[in-house]
């Protein structure tokens, strides 16, 4: 049994979500509901749920406002958060950087089940909630100014300075992260997803399987079809069509 709090300003949507959870995730027990920032904070303080299903758009603010308030009074947040969003594009990127769970309206039962599974795993492992702080940090900033990224692995969520990531390598549907002073990490997301997140932070996809942080590029070798040597002394091939772009980028560095 997992205790949950449901915060949404639409009464019907709360009802629908409740039936959906009953139908597809019967282990979730709704122990409280709220419809605004104000009532949400109170309900959260009072009920101390394990999970909060949190709508972004509320009548007197946003779901982030609740988290800000809790984090201010308690110092930190120790509840799993699942955001529910209709079309808030700006938030999606912050969620992705923070490895935070989110559901899109109308909620797809399959995705709901996947999310519940992840939460159960996290509860078992007693994960930290640092990534929620990262989310709040990132929500306050502009997208291209994000400093850190949360990487979710089988043994928990890890936060890293984006500038510490040397490179990423695609391994089928997984991505292997090579990080400064850290062992490589295998993340269950595609390289393409990270390419979308990191190109604004000085990363470049120089090959079908490689995304590199340009600040760790040591040298560019034109021979043997062209490759780069990274700061960790690995040689990374460059695909034919990326050469020109890479040369331009190196020039502009």
């Amino acid at each position, binding site marked *: 049994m997992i205790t949950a709090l449901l915060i949404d300003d639409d009464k019907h949507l709360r009802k629908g979500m409740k039936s959906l959870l009953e*139908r597809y995730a019967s282990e979730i027990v709704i122990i409280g509901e709220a419809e605004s920032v104000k009532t949400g904070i109170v309900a959260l303080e009072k009920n101390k749920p394990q999970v909060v299903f949190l709508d972004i758009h509320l009548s007197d603010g946003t779901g982030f406002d609740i988290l800000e308030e809790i984090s201010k009074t308690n110092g930190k947040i120790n509840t799993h958060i699942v955001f529910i969003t209709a079309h808030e594009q700006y938030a999606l*990127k912050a969620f992705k950087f923070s490895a935070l769970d989110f559901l899109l309206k109308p909620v*797809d039962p399959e995705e709901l089940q996947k999310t519940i599974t992840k939460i159960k795993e996290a509860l078992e492992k007693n994960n930290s909630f640092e990534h929620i702080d990262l989310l709040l940090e990132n929500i306050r900033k502009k997208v291209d100014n994000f400093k850190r990224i949360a990487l979710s692995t089988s043994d928990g969520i890890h936060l890293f300075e984006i500038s510490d990531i040397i490179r990423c390598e695609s391994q089928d549907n997984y991505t292997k992260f090579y990080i400064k002073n850290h062992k490589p990490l295998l993340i269950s997301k595609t390289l393409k997803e990270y390419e*979308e997140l990191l190109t604004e932070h000085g990363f470049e996809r120089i090959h079908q399987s490689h995304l590199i942080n340009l600040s760790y590029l040591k040298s560019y070798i034109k021979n043997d079809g062209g490759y780069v040597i990274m700061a960790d002394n690995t040689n990374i091939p460059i695909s034919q069509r990326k050469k020109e772009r890479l040369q331009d980028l190196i020039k502009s560095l």
Partner: protein
Amino acid sequence: MLLLGISSFSFAQQPVIDSLKRVLNASKIDTSKANTYNALANEFRESNPDSTNFYASKAQDLSRKGDYTFGIANAYLNKGNANVILSDYPGALKNFHQAQQYFEMLLKNGSEIDALKIKNGLARSYGSAGVVYSEENNYTKALENYLKALKIYQETGQTTSISKAYNNIGIVYKSQKHLDKALEYFEKALRIQNETGEQSAAVTLTNIGAIYFEKGNSIKALEYYEKAKNFFAKIDNKRGNALLYNYLGDYYKKENDVGFAIENYNEAMKLYQEMDNKFGVALVLYNMGQLYIDNKKYEPALAAVEKSLALAREIGTLDQIKYSEKMLSEIYTLMGNQPKAFEHYKQYILIKDSLDNDENTRKFVRAEMNFEYEKKAALLMEKNKRQQQFTLFLIIGGLLLLVLIFVTYNRLQIKRRLTLQKEVAEYEQKALHLQMNPHFVFNCLGSISSFIVQNGTDSAIKYLSKFSKLMRLTLEYSKGSLIPIDKEIEGLQNYLELEQLRFNKKFEFLITSSQAIEDDMALPPLLIQPFVENAILHGMVPKETNGSIQVNFDVKNNQLVCTITDDGIGISKSKAIKENSVTAHQSMALEITKKRLEMMEATTAQSASVDISEILTQTGETVGTKVVISLPIQYTSDTKIRI
């Protein structure tokens, strides 16, 4: 001031004269005889003016008898030349004038004689008249005639004569003390003479030497005189040679080398006497007189100057008379013979007064000449200026035109680009409407509603989430010009699943992509969907049994190729059915897609195409439809689409 202009003539050669005489004996026709007489006269003109006169008269008589105008004209020319040598200037001018009239008559009326010959004859008569005017100190007239001659020679391309004209113009300028201008013309003449190897170069060299002498550059003067002397040694030009000796005499006089001076004056005198040129003799005698005075040898000075005066009086050169009278007065003064001195001084004043009157007119003429020349120069400058202005206008005009063309072209380009962008946007909009086909949207909603009514909540929720995913993708990517290929596949997947649910599993589908497809490839949004929709609506739906649809993405020939195959009823059958219905949807989809592909070709400069065909069995039966869409390979980084 005594000024002497000389014209440069070529010299006579004995062999030439002999051969001409032989021709004369052989000629039976009067015209050719006249020509030969004239040629003979011309050959003698420098060395023997009497012979020239003799032969010219003979030519004239013959020509008159034969009414041979060209011969008459040439005879007048030759007679005039003889007059020049004999210092009979009025006679010379009369003859040259006659020659000019005859030549001009010939030119005007036309004749069997070569126009070039006539023109050259005319030019010669002008040139010679110029020489006479020059010797008469009438420089305006001289210059006028020389320029006329020069113009004709330039027309006929007679380089030798052009150089002569330059030389003579130089002489006029020299006489007017325009030494630099004179030098300029002499050098022009010399350049041509050196090129053509003309013997008249000797005369030009003499003249250049004289200019340097007048400029006070003795070294240069002597240098040129020496050059001229060497030249004259090789040729026979008594007149020119005599002048050179006279100039050399002047040079040594100035250098106080009396011996050499006298020697040279004597040489000059000898030559002038040989030619019976009284003007020249008078000049040399006067110069010698000056030399004797400078050296206090009054007796020989008196003898020389008195001789000079007598000759000057004989030929009536007032300038020479004036100078000689003045010098005689000086000599008598120096000798202490006051009455004689006074007598000559009176004579001097007398002649001077009459000359001053002349001089006044001449001054006036000179002023007029200067005015004329300034006017001409101004006109020329004006013309140049106008030409420069014209060129400037032309350049500015050209530049303006270029700018105009550039601006127009640019504007057109911008307009074209804007139009293209507008069209692209317009057709993207249309494509969006295609996908957001109200029919499809409301059918979907209707399906959801019926699921709920029939208590199929599960199906309703699944259906709804797929629908919302499709809507999300459509809304998100229809704004951009490219959609990442994985998103396109996701969209198609959702769409096909929706239709599958809607048509109650009437068909199966499979979306595949080859290894060659990279995950950051992209294509225009909403391009594929209408063809899939066609496959369902016109291939699957009318089909009696269940069917299947395959969508495949691949890279072929450097193009992104999407192939949609179905085992439906085929297009021809579908069209037959459609004729009985009112849907215009399919044709619109194809039309819009074709337009979009055209614009894609325009923006990427690569080919894009769509090909629709029926799949036939070996027996020719239709077993489905195949749509092949070939697109340029584009990448998400091309437009930097980011979520």
